[in-house]
């Protein structure tokens, strides 16, 4: 149950922080057009184009005729629970978009405007909408509490897309995507292939000296069953996660490979633009086909997993390519007895954070828990968890926006920090690159002595490598 008392514990300082973005509009989401004078017009042009070519119109149409404004969604939103700011109420946020739809794209709205002389959309209103949409972490927790079945996350997604095509998009995301789709390295962190190869060689050697066994990171092996994509930041910062994954795949005898043309699973399109979303998915499919892989294997990453699982079928024009997350595969291998985990190695108190993008739909909740319970002695759950989990506070791409670091620490991530503190855990397992970054910053900011790791970091400690890999 939601802790209502938290609302009253918000400090003046936090409310001040909550209001900060208002003072500096576009401080964190403008890349190309500096405060265009005609942004309201551009917004409406973009709105019309998106409605014309996509499937959002029926949603807006039905929502416009049904929204009951009960406010129940507000109790599910960790941002609103902390700020009590009306612009953070999910249905209020959606209502702003629905109002514009009704005013400019329905006959009734047009008539009403003619008769009553409704004020036209202003630049100031566009600014307010942009701020409101980027204060949302797109965790979609509100959607599970809406009796009507409204998905405010979908409206936030739509609104950000319209803003983006009107030239209002977060520079933190755009710069990365530009390199991924138009740059030389074709990845969001600009990691050159040479550096990737060096890293992987180093990890193979490091693993051997650590475990006395060999692992491989196979590159460009045509015909492998799985083509592996993980957030490219893992290659820079998550050595243990990668070694753990390679150990599982080696021990389990899995046929897999990493492509050298495209090796980044990150798809920021999910956070702000469907055109970007589709182009990154296309790139992933292209690489899988080049390598004649049969399946796409996604590493520890919530949004990349959701994008591949739910949008590869939408954008794939060729033969069907199934998508699987590494935790599903590891669970299958464990169940089949193909990997063994030592239950005596991890003795610390461990808890598990559900990344919203894989848990909210109920897709990946039990598998990581079954893996953890098989070898972690002291496992404790957060409350609530699973489908009803709270966002880390860095969802919806906000973790990549350094300009709102304080907002993420004091507003977006506050509920999660309190949840983790309440467990008394020494280790939080967060199988998602974005969640890990946010949670590490959060633990550091609030001075909680909690280590944030990936699931395969712990597996790395506990895995028993088969004798064949020692040769």
């Amino acid at each position, binding site marked *: 149950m939601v802790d209502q008392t938290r609302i009253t514990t918000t400090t003046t300082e936090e409310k001040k922080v909550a209001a900060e973005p208002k003072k500096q509009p576009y401080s964190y989401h403008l890349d190309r057009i500096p405060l265009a004078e005609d942004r309201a017009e551009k917004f409406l042009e973009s709105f019309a*184009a998106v409605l014309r070519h996509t*499937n959002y119109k029926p*949603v807006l149409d039905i929502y416009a005729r049904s929204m009951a404004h009960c*406010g129940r969604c507000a109790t599910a939103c960790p941002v609103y629970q902390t700020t009590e700011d009306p612009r953070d109420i999910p249905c209020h946020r959606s209502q702003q978009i629905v109002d514009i739809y009704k005013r400019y794209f329905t006959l009734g709205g047009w008539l009403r405007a003619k008769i009553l002389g409704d004020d036209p959309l202003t630049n100031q209103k566009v600014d307010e909408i942009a701020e409101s949409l980027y204060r949302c972490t797109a965790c979609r927790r509100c959607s599970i509490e809406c009796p009507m079945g409204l998905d405010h996350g979908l409206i936030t997604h739509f609104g950000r897309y319209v803003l983006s095509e009107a030239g209002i998009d977060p520079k933190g995301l755009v710069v990365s995507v*530009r390199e991924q789709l138009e740059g030389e390295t074709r990845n969001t962190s600009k990691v050159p292939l040479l550096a990737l190869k060096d890293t992987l060689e180093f990890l193979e050697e490091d693993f051997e000296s650590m475990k006395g066994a060999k692992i491989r990171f196979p590159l460009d092996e045509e015909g492998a069953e799985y083509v592996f994509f993980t957030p490219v930041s893992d290659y820079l910062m998550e050595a243990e996660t990668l070694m753990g994954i390679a150990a599982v795949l080696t021990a389990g005898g899995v046929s897999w490979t990493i492509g050298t043309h495209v090796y980044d699973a990150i798809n920021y399109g999910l956070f702000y633009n469907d055109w970007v979303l589709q182009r990154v998915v296309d790139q992933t499919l292209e690489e899988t086909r080049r390598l004649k892989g049969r399946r796409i294997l996604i590493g520890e990453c919530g949004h990349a997993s959701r994008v591949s699982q739910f949008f590869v079928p939408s954008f794939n024009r060729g033969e069907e390519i199934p998508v699987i997350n590494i935790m599903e595969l590891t669970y299958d291998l464990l169940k089949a007895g193909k990997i063994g985990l030592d239950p005596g190695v991890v003795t610390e108190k461990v808890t598990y954070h559900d990344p919203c993008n894989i848990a909210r739909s109920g897709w990946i909740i039990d598998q990581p828990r079954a893996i953890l319970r098989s070898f972690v002695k002291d496992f404790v759950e957060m409350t609530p968890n699973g489908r009803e989990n709270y966002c880390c506070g860095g969802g919806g791409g906000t973790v990549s926006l350094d300009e709102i670091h304080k907002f993420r620490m004091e507003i977006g991530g506050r509920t999660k920090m309190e949840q983790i503190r309440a467990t008394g855990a020494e280790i939080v397992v967060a199988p998602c690159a974005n969640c890990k970054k946010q949670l590490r910053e959060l633990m550091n900011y609030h001075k909680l002595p909690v280590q944030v790791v990936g699931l395969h970091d712990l597996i790395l400690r506990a895995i028993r490598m088969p004798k064949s890999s020692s040769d």
Partner: protein
Amino acid sequence: MEELLALLKGPLLTFVVVILVLGLIRQVVLSVWVLIEATRRAGDRNIPYARVLRNIAIWVFPVTRLHRSLPVFSYASFFFHLGVISSAVFLREHIDLFGPLGLSWPSIPRPYVDWLALLAFVGLTILLGYRIYVRQSRAVSGFADYVILVLLIVTVGMGYLAGQSWNVIPYDVTMVFHIAAGLAILVLIPFTKLAHCALYPLVRLSSEIGWHFTQEGGHDVVKTLYGPEGRKI
């Protein structure tokens, strides 16, 4: 007063029912049409209908969900819906209005309908209280939200009073308020959020279909806005 009552129960009722039925048919047909069209345009047409249906069923009888968020509001809302629908549909006097059309269905005995109406009235009063006094509810409430609640309170309250021997308001006056407010509600249904009485299952379905993107939508949007050369990121 008798003439006014006759007008309300006669031509006005017929007019309102016609508007209601035609309006709701239009709403449902248009909504189903746009959803069929959206599904046809989707790159992935594999819509999880079973999951959507299961969630609709869960929220029609949300007994396991009500206590989780805003419990007082949620129970009040549930019992209001239960009370208002069952008392409106199964009261003998209401059923008899459809007699001339040759329609009839079983009724609920008056004492039980009275309890259901009372349940609806209490629920409505709580909902109004929330709209006025609870910050998050007030923040998302518009003029229409209050008008609809007041009309419902008058309809249900006067309907309940009309059947009570202790009612001090003259019967005809009570009935005029009951029927007039009730007709206002019925005529507003197709034009306001009350349309959810027919669109309810389609809302959840649209939320699902909305995530099923068109295959070339992104490229087409860019072409429309920036021409065939497209744009750089």
